């Protein structure tokens, strides 16, 4: 487990966090800019001398109210938002900077293999100033991992990249981060990155942790700041069950529940084998509710559901509804007017029309 209880007082800002996350997998720290995500990450790394409280990582005390481990003794890998390779060293020297300083290297990552996975084998003798943004971040990730960290921290590593390099790197991260045996904190303000990468989710708002837990659970709660916002969404896990329908992929998300998503030939997922695990992101705005199963609809996914919860607060005339579809939680955002017209209430059996679901 990682237990975080850190406080930081600034003149116009206060970070006040208390949460625990499991010791494996990707924990996304999500929130609008200025909410203290980066400060939290820096406090965990030990780079904020004014942060007080306690921090325990897999049984090791990094900080207690009485003493704190210095940054260099924490064994934390940090990938900054702005690429930060040492400009006076080559890519290879950068990669080995941390590894050379290990007292006892156990080499959990094979250097050659890591270089191949990151796709930086051509760059080893070059200097950072001749590298692109995506290349710099890949080298920075490799450098952090070769120092054999107990915890990997990534601070919006994709935000400075152009769309194409973002896509390449996020695909790499999707596969790669899941294989790592260490916990990862991933700061982001992009819901797409949360959907694609995060196993756990910590929501941060004005320095306070407003929710923490497995991604699907946190996303399904109606009162979090994220669900109240326009970008509320749900994430479903499933596996590819059929590729027989032309232009469509069938994703089995729960026993007997198939979701169909459009798949063009150019899509990477189109070429995944059957049984391959994937994630779906469904925006709350794209889910509507019918009392009876609509006949002859163009909408691909119409599933029986039970209303689990209806939000009490109504902002800008809409309500958020949590639907239970064979044990999975899906959020739906519909108008206040519709809720009253249809007489929706908890435990009611309805049909959920999912206008679109995207593979992430």
């Amino acid at each position, binding site marked *: 487990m990682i237990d975080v209880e850190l406080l930081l007082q600034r003149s116009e800002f206060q970070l006040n966090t208390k949460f625990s996350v499991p010791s494996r997998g990707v924990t996304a720290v999500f929130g609008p800019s200025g909410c203290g995500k980066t400060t939290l990450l820096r406090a965990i*790394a*030990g*780079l904020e001398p004014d942060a007080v409280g306690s921090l325990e990582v897999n049984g090791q005390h990094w900080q207690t109210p009485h003493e704190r481990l*210095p*940054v*260099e003794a*924490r*064994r*934390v*890998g*940090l990938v*900054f938002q*702005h690429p*930060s390779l*040492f*400009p*006076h060293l080559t890519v290879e020297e950068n990669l080995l*900077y*941390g590894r050379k*300083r*290990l007292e006892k290297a156990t080499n959990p990552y094979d250097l050659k293999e890591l270089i191949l996975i990151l796709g930086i084998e051509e760059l080893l003798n070059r200097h950072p*100033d001749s590298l692109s943004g995506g290349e710099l971040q890949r080298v920075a990730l490799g*450098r*952090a991992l070769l*120092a054999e*960290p107990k915890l990997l921290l990534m601070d919006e590593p994709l935000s400075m990249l152009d769309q194409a390099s973002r896509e390449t790197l996020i695909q790499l991260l999707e596969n790669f981060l899941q294989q790592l045996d260490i916990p990862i904190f991933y700061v982001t303000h992009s819901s797409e990155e949360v959907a694609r990468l995060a196993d756990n989710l910590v929501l941060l708002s004005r320095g306070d942790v407003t929710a923490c837990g497995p991604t699907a659970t946190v996303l399904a709660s109606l009162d979090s700041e994220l669900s109240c916002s326009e970008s509320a969404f749900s994430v479903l896990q499933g596996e590819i069950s059929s590729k027989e329908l032309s232009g469509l992929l069938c994703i089995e998300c729960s026993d007997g529940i198939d979701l169909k998503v459009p798949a063009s030939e150019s899509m990477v997922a189109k070429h995944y084998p059957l049984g391959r695990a994937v994630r779906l992101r469904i925006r709350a705005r794209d889910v509507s509710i019918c009392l009876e199963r609509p006949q002859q609809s163009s909408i691909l996914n119409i599933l029986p559901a039970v209303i689990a919860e209806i939000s009490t607060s109504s902002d800008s005339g809409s309500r958020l509804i949590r639907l239970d579809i064979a044990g999975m939680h899906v959020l739906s955002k519909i108008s206040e007017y519709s809720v009253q017209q249809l007489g929706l209430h908890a435990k009611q059996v309805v049909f959920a029309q999912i206008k679109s679901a995207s593979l992430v």
Partner: protein
Amino acid sequence: MLQHYDITALFITLRLAATTTLILLVVGTPIAWWLANTRSRLRSPIEAIIALPLVLPPTVLGFYLLLAFSPDSPLGGAVASLGLPSLAFSFTGLVLGSVIYSMPFVVQPLQNSFVSLGKRPLEVAATLGASIFDRFISVVLPLSKMGYLTAAVLGFAHTLGEFGVVLMIGGNIPGETQVLSIAIYDHVEALEYSQAHWLAGGLLISSFLVLLMIYGMNRRIHLMKTS
């Protein structure tokens, strides 16, 4: 032509400038580092004190140093009670005076270089397991190369041209504390213009060459970065 004392004056000057520069690089590094990173209220007063030699007439500095060297003062008294020779009219005294006099010329370029370095490279190095000392050697020094070069050249050149302070505390003893700038003054006073020309011209040309070299290197590094 040059006399024996002119040659010794040249060597004393070079030795003084080299010793002073070396001491200043060692002493100036922690001071510049502190000034570049501290949030303490003491920063401004310390910066002002270090910059004082830039605005004070050297004779003012020399006057107070002379007072400090006298056996009646705490410094001079301490030196005397240790059984060491007096600092006034000695080479050691000249070094001490020059270190204070040339301090801003070394500290300020170093401070600027440390500030422009920023915190990020050091934070990265710390997360990668480098201790404070290690971070300084492996990150700060190589990234502040230009700052150190500028500091060394300015400190050396400024000590080379020192006149007022040396005159006040050195006593102009040929072969011991007489430096080049004072030797030139003496020659001019004695109307020995040809010797004065040799020394003055030599200093002019060598100073120009040193500065040319520095600016040339600066330009090369700049070109390498932009290419």
